[in-house]
């Protein structure tokens, strides 16, 4: 049977993983020619893990598609009522399948890194393989031994119980349920194709910079710079996937969860945000490390912290230690995972402390008015926000451990505690790129920020004068417009300089960006982040809502909008749901703008209702309508809740801009330019060469 092939392939990949880990670690330890040959063999084993895991993944996917209910996993997450599309996505719809998918992605990342040529940092390869494959093999091991997707259902003839086991228990006969339970209704959404895979790519991708950092520390190569450049590129890959995952997750929550917003500070959202924050901090600090040889310890800590937070997030999601909307259900995963995390955390710290002397800074901070200082400060802000989010996330656990009562902190805590920090961070975003390296004259800096500063004050002032709302909103708007103007002004200055040489504006823009991908790609990313920031400002300060029961033909108003309840009907929907759908008309200033159909789907088998909003979107705001109640008899009256969500559209546009910016930033530069772009002033190099002697 096909499942046996999947199981066999999974087992082989596990054994290959163990082989690769052990042999590469031994090869690295030997360090001689024989050691390198062993590492080469470990590399081949690692490359082989991917096809074997692919077979496993394909078998599970096919079983889900063809509804092979002999497999417990298939019976758990697939069902006859589900569309083929949802059956395929059910691969990551439950614990066992998603861990297999996770391992597959991680192995894919590791293999991709090994596939390329290892010229510059080949000495790191043995330990890189050892660290990366230890982690990957751990996850494959979880799939093999703890949540095996190839486990079948068995009927114990003696006690009549149904059990799950990979091999037939004594005296049992195979049990094949007539239909499966199907996916959790919340997962039956188009977003299932986007959010989980991108999130997993983001999380698993962080193993690469981590493995580089650990192997650099192990070999003492952390003294050199090459590995950190390689790490930067891979962090960027993981980071962009995590960013996309975050945006898609927000979109999904907005479309499905029916709480009117896109970010709820749920523990799992936080678990994803924290590595994103530290990863972002790393992507900034690494620039200082690359160009000035400073903040090395800082960069290494950020890599380790990012990976640790990714593991932490995975741990709390998959073991249910902190309850959230993403609960995976109880499994025996906890203890093993706990040991793995403990070993990883303590091992990394021990190694880092042991190798601190290899991470000496090559330059001292010369002035607080310098790009180095600005980046350091901005990094501290990232860490402060991470800490605040971390505290809020573990607070239920902490409070229960200390006082015996579980206290969950809600969005107000997160908003109040992170709001000012984010504000300061955004200010840094506007100004830090304008700082010069090493030392900045205050006058020059003043001239550079003068125009954006005045422009943003004007915008915020005019807005504040015309819309007398929450004072915090003026500040938020000022900060946001400051950044946007500062960035656009940078583009303007660059283009203007080129136009003076006779280029037309479009050519000037293309060449400007082409000459310095990283810088202008970074600016575009900043613009995208600010668009998402706008959506947050709208959500926190300007959201408006109202709720009313309406009879057919009646209307309710929210500001200049009017919603008329036209009809309500009930019909059986696809994949086992009862749909109750309202028809309403939305008018703006008396003019018809859209028909909106908010729904309430009830999943009969799971006994789970789902409130699906309908939304009217413009660039300025969303009108988000929920059907929250109705009269059961005759369906003549319904209760609607309307949210006015300003600027939400910009969160999604911002996500796209972010991707665009990252694309620009990672676009390979022409070779000749690449070599010159990192060269420092020769004088500082000479000064550095003399330092280590006194430092030790």
């Amino acid at each position, binding site marked *: 049977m096909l499942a046996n092939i999947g199981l066999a392939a999974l087992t082989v990949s596990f054994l290959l993983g163990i082989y690769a880990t052990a042999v590469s670690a031994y090869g690295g330890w030997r360090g001689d020619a024989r050691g390198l040959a062993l590492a080469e063999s470990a590399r081949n084993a690692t490359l082989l893990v991917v096809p074997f895991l692919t077979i496993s993944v394909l078998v599970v996917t096919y079983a889900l598609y063809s509804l092979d209910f002999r497999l417990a996993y298939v019976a758990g997450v697939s069902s006859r009522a589900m569309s083929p599309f949802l059956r395929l996505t059910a691969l990551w719809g439950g614990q066992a399948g998603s861990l297999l998918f996770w391992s597959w992605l991680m192995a894919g990342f590791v293999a991709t890194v090994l596939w390329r040529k290892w010229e510059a940092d080949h000495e790191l390869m043995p330990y890189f393989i050892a660290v990366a494959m230890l982690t990957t093999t751990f996850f494959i091991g979880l799939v093999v031994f703890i949540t095996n997707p190839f486990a079948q259902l068995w009927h114990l003839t003696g006690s009549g119980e149904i059990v799950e086991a990979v091999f037939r228990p004594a005296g049992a006969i195979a049990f094949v349920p007539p239909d499966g339970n199907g996916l959790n209704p919340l997962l039956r959404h188009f977003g299932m194709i986007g959010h989980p895979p991108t999130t997993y790519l983001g999380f698993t991708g962080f193993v690469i910079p981590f493995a580089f950092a650990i192997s650099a520390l192990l070999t003492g190569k952390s003294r050199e710079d090459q590995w950190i450049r390689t790490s930067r590129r891979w962090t960027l890959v993981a980071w962009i996937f995590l960013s996309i995952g975050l945006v898609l997750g927000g979109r999904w929550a907005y479309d499905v969860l029916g709480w009117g917003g896109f970010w709820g500070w749920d523990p799992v959202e936080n678990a994803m945000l924290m590595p994103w924050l530290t990863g972002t901090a790393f992507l900034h600090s690494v620039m200082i490390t690359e160009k000035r040889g400073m903040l090395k*310890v*800082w960069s290494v*800590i950020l890599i*380790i*912290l990012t990976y*640790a937070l990714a593991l*932490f997030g995975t*741990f*709390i999601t998959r*073991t*249910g*230690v*902190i309850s959230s909307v993403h609960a995976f259900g*109880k499994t025996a995963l*906890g*203890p093993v995972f*706990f040991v793995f*995390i*403990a070993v990883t*955390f*303590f091992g*990394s*710290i021990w190694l*880092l*402390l042991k190798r*601190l002397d290899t*991470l*000496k*800074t090559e330059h*001292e*901070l*010369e*002035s*607080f008015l310098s790009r180095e*200082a600005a980046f*350091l*400060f901005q990094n*501290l802000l990232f*860490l*402060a926000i*991470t*800490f605040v989010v*971390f*505290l809020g996330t*573990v607070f239920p*656990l*902490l409070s*229960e*451990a200390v006082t015996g009562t579980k206290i969950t902190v809600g969005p107000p805590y997160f908003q109040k505690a992170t709001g000012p920090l984010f504000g300061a961070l955004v200010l840094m975003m506007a100004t830090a790129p304008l700082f010069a390296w090493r030392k900045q004259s205050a006058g020059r800096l003043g001239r550079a920020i003068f125009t954006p500063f005045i422009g943003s004050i004007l915008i915020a002032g005019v807005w504040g004068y015309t819309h007398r709302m929450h004072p915090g909103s003026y500040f938020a708007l000022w900060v946001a417009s400051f950044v946007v103007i500062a960035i656009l002004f940078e583009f303007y200055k660059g283009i203007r300089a080129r136009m003076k040489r006779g280029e037309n504006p479009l050519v000037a823009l293309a060449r400007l960006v082409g000459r310095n991908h990283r810088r202008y790609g970074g600016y575009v990313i900043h613009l995208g982040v600010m668009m998402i920031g706008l959506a947050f400002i709208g959500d926190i300060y300007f959201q408006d809502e109202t709720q009313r029961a309406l009879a057919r033909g009646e209307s309710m108003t929210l500001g200049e909008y009017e919603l008329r309840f036209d009809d309500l009907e009930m019909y059986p929907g696809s994949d086992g749901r009862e749909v109750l759908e309202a028809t309403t008309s939305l008018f703006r200033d008396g003019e018809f703008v859209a028909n909106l159909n908010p729904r309430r789907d009830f999943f009969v088998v799971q*006994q789970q209702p789902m409130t699906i909003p309908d939304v009217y979107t413009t660039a300025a705001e969303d009108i988000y309508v929920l059907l929250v109640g109705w009269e059961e008899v005759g369906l003549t009256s319904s209760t609607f809740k309307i949210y006015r969500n300003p600027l939400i559209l910009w969160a999604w546009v911002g996500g796209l801009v972010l991707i665009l910016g990252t694309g620009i930033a990672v676009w390979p530069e022409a070779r000749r330019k690449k070599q010159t772009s990192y060269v420092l002033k020769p004088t500082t190099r000479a000064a550095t060469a003399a330092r280590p002697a*006194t*430092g030790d």
Partner: protein
Amino acid sequence: MAEMIRKREPETVPQEGVATQERTLSLPQGETGAEQSARRWLSTILVYAAVAGLLLLLGWGLVKVNSGQVDSGLAPDFTITGFEGETITLSELRGRPVIINFWASWCPPCREEAPYLEATWRKYKDLGVVFIGVDYADTESKALEYIEEFDITYFNGPDLGTRISQAYRMDGVPETYFVAKNGELRGVHVGPLYPPKLDEKIEELLAEEYP
């Protein structure tokens, strides 16, 4: 200037738990070797302690999540107010076997066991057995419809603030806990009850001696 880097970081980093050692990076030449190593030791210990603390917390949470239902020892005491306003306190029921059943009107398996529960209650109520139905995360109107539908006559009340289900570390509905005459738990049944499980359990509980 190294001073500046060193001093700025400790303010925000140590709580994170992974990162206090930066300041050993470039110690000013003014410090003596002893001071240096003392500082290094202190920060090292702090880092390890923070990580150990976090792991301890996670480990504790894990144990709690995985420990499953309370199914032995003295049954956690509680007072519950029924849908009709009357109040029951578990510890006041010593000398009588108590069956605590967690249920909800939205729970299909609960419907499977409801007739059996009611029939068993009618069979044993004159022998001093107490049934307590704890309605978990439900609305009162739906719960009352459910009680009427199955003509349930034993005591039922809502689990306000899910306090009782937390105390018993209940996992889902339905779950049934068996309390002996002396107030100790004699096991838990997860999922719907079918004959003759409940009868057998009650017979066992009735057979126990109580002074």
